[in-house]
């Protein structure tokens, strides 16, 4: 399945839209700094705040696409998240799993590679963003409410691994 992409531009406000959703460009510096910010504010549960914000907003994007295109199979619905991941410039992933959970291999990663470009290899995984993203993807694929899945990053490009790996379990 190839994602249908419709880019549009509002000539009055100059905002950009992808499939009707307002989107904006930033560089890896921005997400790397946001990631660093949540790491620094871990005592405020900032990593969880980032994960949940990503899960909730990405879920809305996936649900909107799924509804508009009448996608019913879990595989097609899951593919929406996988393909959007690349369209957003976030990298490339391979998904295995079912309703009860699964595993994601991150072959390339904007967040991790951006972190390494900026600060070099880190001593632990930092990709809270993708944890939230994957939770949204599984939730949308299997039509489960938010926070139905717990995603743990067990291998990390930012921490020196050749690929990232995320384990998905039901909560």
């Amino acid at each position, binding site marked *: 399945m190839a994602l249908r992409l419709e880019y549009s*531009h509002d*000539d009055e406000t100059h905002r950009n839209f992808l499939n009707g959703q*307002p*989107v904006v*460009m*930033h*560089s890896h510096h921005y997400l790397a700094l*946001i990631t660093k910010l949540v790491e620094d504010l871990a005592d405020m549960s900032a990593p969880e705040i980032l994960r949940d914000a990503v899960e909730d907003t990405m879920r809305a994007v996936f649900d909107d696409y799924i509804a508009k295109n009448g996608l019913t199979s879990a595989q097609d619905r899951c593919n929406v998240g996988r393909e959007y991941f690349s369209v957003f410039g*976030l990298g*490339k992933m391979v998904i295995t799993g079912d309703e009860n959970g699964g595993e994601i291999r991150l072959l390339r990663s904007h967040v991790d590679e951006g972190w390494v470009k900026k600060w070099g290899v880190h001593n632990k995984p930092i990709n809270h963003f993708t944890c939230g993203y994957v939770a949204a993807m599984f939730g949308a694929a299997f039509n489960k409410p938010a926070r139905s899945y717990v995603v743990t990053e067990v291998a990390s490009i930012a921490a020196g691994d050749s690929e990232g790996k995320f384990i998905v379990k039901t909560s």
Partner: protein
Amino acid sequence: MTVMRDTVVKSLARVTVQADENGLIPEYEVLVNLLPVALLNTFMERIMAAAPPERKAEVEAGLVRAAYECGYHTGCGIITSDIFNEVVLPMVTEGEKDILRGAYAAFTAWGWAKSGIVQLKEAEKMVIRAFDYYEADSGGDGLRGFMLRGLSQAFFDLAYADPYPDGMDTFVCHQTKGIEAGDPYGEFIVVKK
């Protein structure tokens, strides 16, 4: 001749970024992402809401910093890019002032903020007005133009401060008005730190 804003906006507004086979968007010497505005605003509001009063300034500074470094490093790539060379540089006759005019036209074209320069005293002060910016939709209390603050500070540093890295943080940007606070536009003032 100076930089004509409408020419820049028309030329850049329809440039769409496309990911490569690895799902990455290498552009302007950085990796670019294209994210839903709702995601950035939701995160900003939730992290601000979670911060106790004594730490709100720290969180705010972190959000501005993210935009500042993004603006500073990406800014170098933007003003040396082929598209900037092709569209903006031929119209530059007033040096840094015109580069900044071109930059704000680019910010407008790329949907960061429909903004422009109101007043510019070279290497001293710059007043920016924004009639639309995505952070104004965040729904939070108070002024929320953190991204535009960081971006404005970064570009003024690039234009008038010492070269990287010494010139970083020479200037600072304050937001004085905001659409999100009920004003008709957002106003951002860059001055020496």
